[in-house]
């Protein structure tokens, strides 16, 4: 599903002059099907407000010219939000805080029951099993456990299983790695990649973790004070010094190294993923060695 946005402005507390707050200011953006799209920017730049629009959790305000997600037109009041939400999964920050059911099975089943009430018990069971296994948990061992007696990392997996159980085409993740330990983070990225190769066509990720963004996203939008500063590939974004500095961004490690090396006269041209960076270093090394 292709996502197209034109002139999206969103104001909180529109009616009250003293409390009014403009969270999004004239945003136009296209996210192609198949993108692994990153949205970055400092706190309060409107990232979360924007991604919540995609799921119809925040309704567009009058002046928005166009907002389509696949065949769904979000500027239309009669838009079928339920069916939209079954196709656009949303993982919130700290998703483990949304768990509520007595068992892991019931919690994961929740979305399925809501979106597809006509499925038989077996079909549902099968889908829940798949979802739980996709996030790397042992179905037989966890299905009857209470989600509240699990560890933080496991809880988060259960919560994510609860979102992907409906096999959404678009998955939106708001700060998904916040609070995970390094190992958990690594596994999480692997999971995302697996999903992207499997049924999730488009992944949209909001993050402060530039390494994560540079490593995985093919396109990035930088937000500042509700406006889009720039969109482009990680390379296009992170190699422009002024964008990074003006938008309160951090550099991914690869971009940092590349910049430092450049200042020492070694010019690399990687796309900022670790593999490609190593490749570039190798090539450079071979070149000077061969030159000797």
């Amino acid at each position: 599903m292709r996502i197209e946005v034109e002139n999206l402005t969103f104001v909180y507390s529109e009616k009250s002059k003293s409390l009014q707050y403009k969270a999004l200011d004239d945003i136009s953006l296209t996210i192609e099907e198949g993108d692994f799209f990153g949205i970055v920017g400092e706190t309060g730049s409107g990232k979360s407000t924007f991604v919540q629009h995609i799921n119809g959790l925040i309704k567009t305000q009058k002046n928005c010219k166009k907002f389509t997600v696949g065949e769904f037109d979000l500027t239309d009041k009669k838009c079928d939000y339920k069916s939209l939400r079954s196709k656009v999964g949303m993982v919130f920050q700290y998703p483990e805080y949304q768990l509520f059911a007595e068992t892991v099975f019931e919690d994961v089943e929740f979305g399925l029951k809501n979106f597809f009430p006509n499925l038989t018990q077996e079909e549902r069971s099968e889908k829940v099993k798949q979802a739980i296994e996709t996030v790397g948990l042992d179905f037989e061992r966890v299905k009857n456990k209470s989600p509240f007696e699990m560890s933080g990392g496991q809880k988060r997996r259960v919560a994510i299983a609860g979102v992907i159980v409906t096999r959404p085409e678009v998955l939106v993740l708001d700060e998904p790695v916040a609070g995970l330990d390094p190992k958990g983070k690594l596994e999480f990225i692997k999971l995302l990649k697996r999903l992207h190769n499997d049924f999730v066509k488009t992944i949209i990720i909001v993050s402060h973790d530039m390494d994560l963004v540079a490593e995985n996203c093919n396109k990035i939008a930088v937000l500042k004070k509700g406006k889009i500063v720039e969109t482009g590939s990680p390379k296009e974004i992170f190699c422009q010094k002024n964008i990074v500095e003006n938008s309160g961004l951090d550099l991914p490690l690869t971009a940092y190294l590349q910049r430092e090396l450049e200042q020492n006269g070694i010019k690399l041209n990687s796309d900022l993923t670790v593999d490609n960076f190593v490749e570039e270093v190798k090539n450079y090394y071979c070149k000077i060695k061969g030159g000797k």
Partner: protein
Amino acid sequence: MKEFSFGSYYPENSFVHKMDARVKILLSIAYIVAVFLVKNNTWINYLGFVPCLLFVIIVAVVSKIPFIKVVKSIKTIIFFVILSALLQIFFNKSGTPLWKNGFITDKGLYNAGYIFLRIVLVVMGASLLTFTTSPVEIADGIESLLTPLKLIKFPVHEFALVMSIALRFIPTLLDETDRIIKAQTSRGADFNSGNIFKKAKALIPILIPLLISSFRRADELADAMDARCYAGSKNRTKYKKMKLSLRDLIGTLFTALLIVGVCFL
């Protein structure tokens, strides 16, 4: 839900906003007393409500609050007000019937109007207090006003602390509720359809996470207070000291004028 601002505090920079919270609380009570002082005998006594209404209008103008907001504050109790007025109209048997064998009496009608005006005026006046005074100020004001109760060993400080913590966490919990509602909505939860039992059941996915997070927050707050050696009321100083000023005197005189006016009419 982000549109929801707690209570009805309406931030402005006005004469009334800057008044001492304690004085405002006391004056609100005085105002309510004044409304109840309006005599209750004949139709001419309705005139007693005029100064009260004038008072509300003047305070609203001085505090730069749109009068329409003050009027809207009766929205929540309008059902109750109309019900009590109707009860008076239909069930008051004293006085003379308006027409032969009718069950509506002049006394009933008179009482209905009287009760209606009384409640509406009281609520509008009370709303002015919450419009011009932030919840925290009100809590501080109440604490200060209750200080004499310390003499009978009433834990005033603890009481006020509980009150201000509760007030402090209302917006936080609202945010949290908002987030959980959104998270469950995106998983297809539907809170608006079905009969009342279905609707009640639909609340479970919100209430349980909310309950759990409240406990978590309470624990964290207790730890944070312990870590800073919080030990209750002894020798605690205040960041914002409340001070009486000329403004409060003017406000008091103005309210006194109202009471005198009501007593004379």
